[in-house]
């Protein structure tokens, strides 16, 4: 405990604080706090009225506990009582508590406002200050409503003390920031402006802050402040360092006021009045001159304060952008700072130069420092300084130095910090495109980017290089040659394989004349990478292969052989399997004419703003993640609507084919594609190719009837369906929401149909665990997010998107801990699609998006029903209508163990009825599906045939959609 306890020490508080500090563990601390909370609670509730001192002490203890990070749910009333105490210390603690722990509790707010009102009208400056501080600290809308009219009066009243004026000015500033609509301009504004002439420098400082914020809102009202500000500034700048007494800070005259005045002037264009303008220029010159004078003190505070004014003056010069001599002087001054031994100054010089580079007067002057900046990039020890150097290089880049700057950034990339690599990649990609005179340089640059920092090359970057190559004939041959050479490296990044696959698939013919890059060699080269790649890349390569069949008929046999192999045709991944099947059929059936039409070269992309630029812009700023999410959500609901109005929603595949056939323009195709995602998301995932209802064995007549359906290229596991002419989703990736579109949607493991707990999703960064419970038509799901890395995830957000039938009634997120999310689920009516959990967070520098289907399936709302044999068969017969029964015969995927099967049926939710079926090896179950509106009785029968390793599953329910869905879900399990 410190020896001096100034003012009135509260001994009880000091004892409590040292108790907390002596706690050895978190548990001990919590125990001690709970003890104290119980004590305070009993004191507050006790019959004996507490005296002011005790009340103050306990409120202060509560405040301390709250500041330690614990929740406080009582004591507000006692704190409000303290406000009306006539003892200063009690009032002060009361106000402190209120401003730290504001609660929008409406009855309290009116009490608080009342107390504030009393203090404001008390004419006691100390009490008035406390009240004004409280308004400024809380700054809520309710306070603004109550006091926005009164504070200006206090501010301009003639008899107000200086210190109260200062508080009132800043209090008003704060109210104007939170609720600008409530602070009405009026007669007081002119009088506020005249505070700039006040004798008391503290009042001038506070008033300048206020005027600056108000002037941003309504510049016209405060125009007169310009001349006053210039006059005041000029007086400060020319004063001797001792003139201003205590407002001189380490030999710098009123640095705070100077900076604020310079900021105020940045709200306006250069003054029109020649005399004022001349005076201002004089001031700015004096400030620039002072920078050259020898320092008056060796203390860092002196140089910091002096340079703070200097940097603000430079900001004003850049803002005015009208005096070339000043601009060039500013640039030279910053140039000196670039090599200053103080790191802070180097940082700020780089930062200010960025804005200077955009002025036409000083752009050339900035460019002269290129070597210094490049050197900073290489030699600075502090990553945030290097980051500024990258920014400046980006800002000073133009046609004349683009090659040098891009080359330097590329070489820096190899050793750059991981946290800024992605941004550098984006910047290089943008500069290379913007200043590309010949596109061979551009292609080389992007390929180098992939080579040096492949992991940080986002999809936008490689989409862009493909768009450009496709749109420019002159570079296509070169691009094909270059990627072919690049692919020959033994280890190359997957992004390179993607670009290579795409470009060779389109333009491989341009280099096929050379025997070193004959069609077969090209194909072998691509195929040698195939097995090392992820599913989306392999899918892309398969598309490249079918394009090869069209380009080079001589390799058709080889490629068909590859497509026919078990590893393709029977690939576990439904996407790859489907592509292999469809491409193989296409290559066999279609004539060369049809092939040539279907697999025609990509048409040029419409010219538009680079999506990379949009991404770079998006990287800045905190609030930008959510609009994307919202947009995505909106889009989904729109698609949901489309599904509903579509005449053949989920089963009629031909219907889908025709939807695709009508999609010609890119945006429409995009819509259609999403539509298909929605429609398929339930069915396709659940059915592998063998099952009779699925897409797999598309009957031959379908091919001949509707050619446009066959060439369906799907992207991602549940990705977007498009005609093959458009290859990939590239064509209609909207620049605004690429992240969500490219998002791989992970289906949940099928074991979750019969289980409620377990690990839902896992990658290198994140593990998502689930615990869920269901009762009748309600459910609750606990989602646990585990960070597997040692670094923090930033901007973590998880949200649920779902179709309209199933609503997470109240997705509440547990306060404090970010690790657990609770979803309350209500089944409104029967449904197919599971809701999707979207997760976004920032890891290192990159935004991560994960979308997982939540294992909320219809059978979760099953209640088992026990019944006798007689009863069962009676109901079985009642449900005999053809649409009520769904039957499927399928091959066993797991060993046909009786106990396991029993467990699965029970896990599925139905009651397992023994001795009902005459054949003891059959399984019979019964239950009721609960939804909000109805209850659907369900009977099921599973007949295993161990010899054939087959099952027959029959479902009878009173509703056809329920029968179908349950059958689909359960047949997956065996």
């Amino acid at each position: 405990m410190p020896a001096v306890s100034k003012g009135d020490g509260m001994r009880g508080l000091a004892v409590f604080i040292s108790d907390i500090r002596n706690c050895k563990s978190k548990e001990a601390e919590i125990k001690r706090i709970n003890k104290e909370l119980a004590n305070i609670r009993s004191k507050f509730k006790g019959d004996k009225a507490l005296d002011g001192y005790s009340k103050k002490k306990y409120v202060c203890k509560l405040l301390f506990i709250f500041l330690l990070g614990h929740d406080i749910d009582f004591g507000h009333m006692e704190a409000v009582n303290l406000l009306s105490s006539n003892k200063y210390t009690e009032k002060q603690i009361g106000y402190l508590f209120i401003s730290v722990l504001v609660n929008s509790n409406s009855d309290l707010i009116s009490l608080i406002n009342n107390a504030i009102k009393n203090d404001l009208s008390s004419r006691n400056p100390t009490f008035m200050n406390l009240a004004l501080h409280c308004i400024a600290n809380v700054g809520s809308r309710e306070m603004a409503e109550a006091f926005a009219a009164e504070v200006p009066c206090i501010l301009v009243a003639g008899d107000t003390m200086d210190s109260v004026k200062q508080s009132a000015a800043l209090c008003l500033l704060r109210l104007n920031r939170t609720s600008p609509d409530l602070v009405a301009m009026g007669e007081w504004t002119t009088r506020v402006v005249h505070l700039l002439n006040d004798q008391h420098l503290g009042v001038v400082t506070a008033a300048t802050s206020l005027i600056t914020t108000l002037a941003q809102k309504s510049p016209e009202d405060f125009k007169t402040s310009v001349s006053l500000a210039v006059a005041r500034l000029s007086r400060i700048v020319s004063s001797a360092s001792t003139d201003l007494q205590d407002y001189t800070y380490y030999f710098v005259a009123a640095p705070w006021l100077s900076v604020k005045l310079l900021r105020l002037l940045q709200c306006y264009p250069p003054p029109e009045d020649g005399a004022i303008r001349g005076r201002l220029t004089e001031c700015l010159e004096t400030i620039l001159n002072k920078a050259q004078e020898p320092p008056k003190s060796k203390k860092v505070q002196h140089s910091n304060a002096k340079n703070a004014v200097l940097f603000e003056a430079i900001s004003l010069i850049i803002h005015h952008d009208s005096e070339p001599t000043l601009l060039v002087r500013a640039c030279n001054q910053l140039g000196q700072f670039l090599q200053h031994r103080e790191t802070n100054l180097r940082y700020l010089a780089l930062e200010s130069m960025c804005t200077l580079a955009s002025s036409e007067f000083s752009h050339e002057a900035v460019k002269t420092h290129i070597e210094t900046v490049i050197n900073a990039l290489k030699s600075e020890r502090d990553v945030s300084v290097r980051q500024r150097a990258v920014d400046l290089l980006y800002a000073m880049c133009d046609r004349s130095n683009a090659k040098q700057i891009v080359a330097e950034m590329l070489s820096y990339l190899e050793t750059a910090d991981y946290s800024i690599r992605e941004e550098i990649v984006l910047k290089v990609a943008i500069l290379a495109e913007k200043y590309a005179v010949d596109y061979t340089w551009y292609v080389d640059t992007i390929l180098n980017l992939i080579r040096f920092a492949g992991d940080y090359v986002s999809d936008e970057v490689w989409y862009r290089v493909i768009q450009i190559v496709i749109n420019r004939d002159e570079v296509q041959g070169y691009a094909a040659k270059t990627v072919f050479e690049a692919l020959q490296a033994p280890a190359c990044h997957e992004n390179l394989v993607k670009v290579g696959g795409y470009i060779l698939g389109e333009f491989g013919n341009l280099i096929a004349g050379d025997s070193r890059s004959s069609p077969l060699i090209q194909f072998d080269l691509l195929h040698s990478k195939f097995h090392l790649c992820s599913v989306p890349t392999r899918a892309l390569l398969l598309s490249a292969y079918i394009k090869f069949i069209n380009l080079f008929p001589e390799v058709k046999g080889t490629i068909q052989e590859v497509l026919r192999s078990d590893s393709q045709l029977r690939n576990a991944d439904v996407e790859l399997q489907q592509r292999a099947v469809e491409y193989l059929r296409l290559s066999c059936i279609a004539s060369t004419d049809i092939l040539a039409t279907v697999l025609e070269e990509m048409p040029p992309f419409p010219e538009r703003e680079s999506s990379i630029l949009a991404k770079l812009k998006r990287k800045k700023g905190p609030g930008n993640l959510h609009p994307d999410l919202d947009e995505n959500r909106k889009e989904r609901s729109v698609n949901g609507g489309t599904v509903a109005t579509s005449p053949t929603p989920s089963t009629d595949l031909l219907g889908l084919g025709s939807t695709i056939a009508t999609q010609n323009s890119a945006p429409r195709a995009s819509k259609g594609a999403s539509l298909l995602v929605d429609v398929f998301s339930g069915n396709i995932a659940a059915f592998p190719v063998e099952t009779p209802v699925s897409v797999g064995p598309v009957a031959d007549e379908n091919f001949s009837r509707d050619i446009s359906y066959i060439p369906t290229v799907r992207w991602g596991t549940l990705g977007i369906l498009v005609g093959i002419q458009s290859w990939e989703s590239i064509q209609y990736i909207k620049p605004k929401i690429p992240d969500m579109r490219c998002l791989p949607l992970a289906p949940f493991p099928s074991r979750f149909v019969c289980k409620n707990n377990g690990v839902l999703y896992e990658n290198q960064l994140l593990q998502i665990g689930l615990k869920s419970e269901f009762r009748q038509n309600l459910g609750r799901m606990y989602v646990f997010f585990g960070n597997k890395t040692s670094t923090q995830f930033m901007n973590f957000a998880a949200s649920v998107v779902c179709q309209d039938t199933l609503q997470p009634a109240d997705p509440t997120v547990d306060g404090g801990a970010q690790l657990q999310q609770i979803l309350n689920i209500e089944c409104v009516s029967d449904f197919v699609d599971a809701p999707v959990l979207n997760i976004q967070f920032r890891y290192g520098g990159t935004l991560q998006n994960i979308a997982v289907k939540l294992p909320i399936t219809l059978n979760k709302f099953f209640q088992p029903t026990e019944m006798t044999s007689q009863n069962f068969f009676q109901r079985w017969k009642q449900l005999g209508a053809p649409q009520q029964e769904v039957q499927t015969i399928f091959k066993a995927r797991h060993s046909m163990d009786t106990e396991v099967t029993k467990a699965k049926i029970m896990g599925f939710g139905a009651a397992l009825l023994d001795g009902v079926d005459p054949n003891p090896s059959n399984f019979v179950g019964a239950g009721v599906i609960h939804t909000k509106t109805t209850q659907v009785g369900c009977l099921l029968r599973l007949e295993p045939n161990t010899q054939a390793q087959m099952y027959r599953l029959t479902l009878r329910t009173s509703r056809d959609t329920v029968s179908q869905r349950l059958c689909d879900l359960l047949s997956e399990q065996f």
Partner: protein
Amino acid sequence: MRFLLLFSRQGKLRLQKWFTPIPEREKKKITRDMTTMVLARKPRSCNFLHWKDLKIVYKRYASLYFCCGLDAEENELLALEMLHRYVELLDKYFGNVCELDIIFNFEKAYFILDEFLLGGEVQETSKLVVARSVEASDMLQETERLMEIILLFPLFFSCYHGGIHEQACILTLGEMDLHTHQKDSGQYRSGGLTTVQNDGVVSCRMRVCF
């Protein structure tokens, strides 16, 4: 300025001041981000960082980190000096301020800050003026306490004025304090009690040590 945080080298938050309304959850997140980011910085790095759309300015004083978040157009160097001025004010008040002073007298640290900064802007840059207003509120506290004595123990107080044995007065003070702090069992010593007549207003200074 959007916020000001004081935290220890172990990442323990010692003082937090938010100048814009932010939900509690968000505050915790920002605090976490700031501590991890700032504590990971190497010594002699520059004092500025970019974080989202804010500029972060921080400085270490002994075992405490002072860290504030600024809007894009604010002046970093001056913010650095503002932190310094706040440290000077604390120093002047506590006399060689250390982390413990701020832990045990956290409410004072907040009061001093309120005199210096308001709504995220500098209210008063003069060290003298700020110190004077903080002193004045302390004076006010002590006057209040003396008034309490007069109220509770008019007899003893007048005794003191009458030049009664000092020992009795100390005992009296001890009793008075025991009355207010019911749990206290410590012994009290008086460092002296003075009365100053000034402009007809009685202002008293008293020191009780234990």
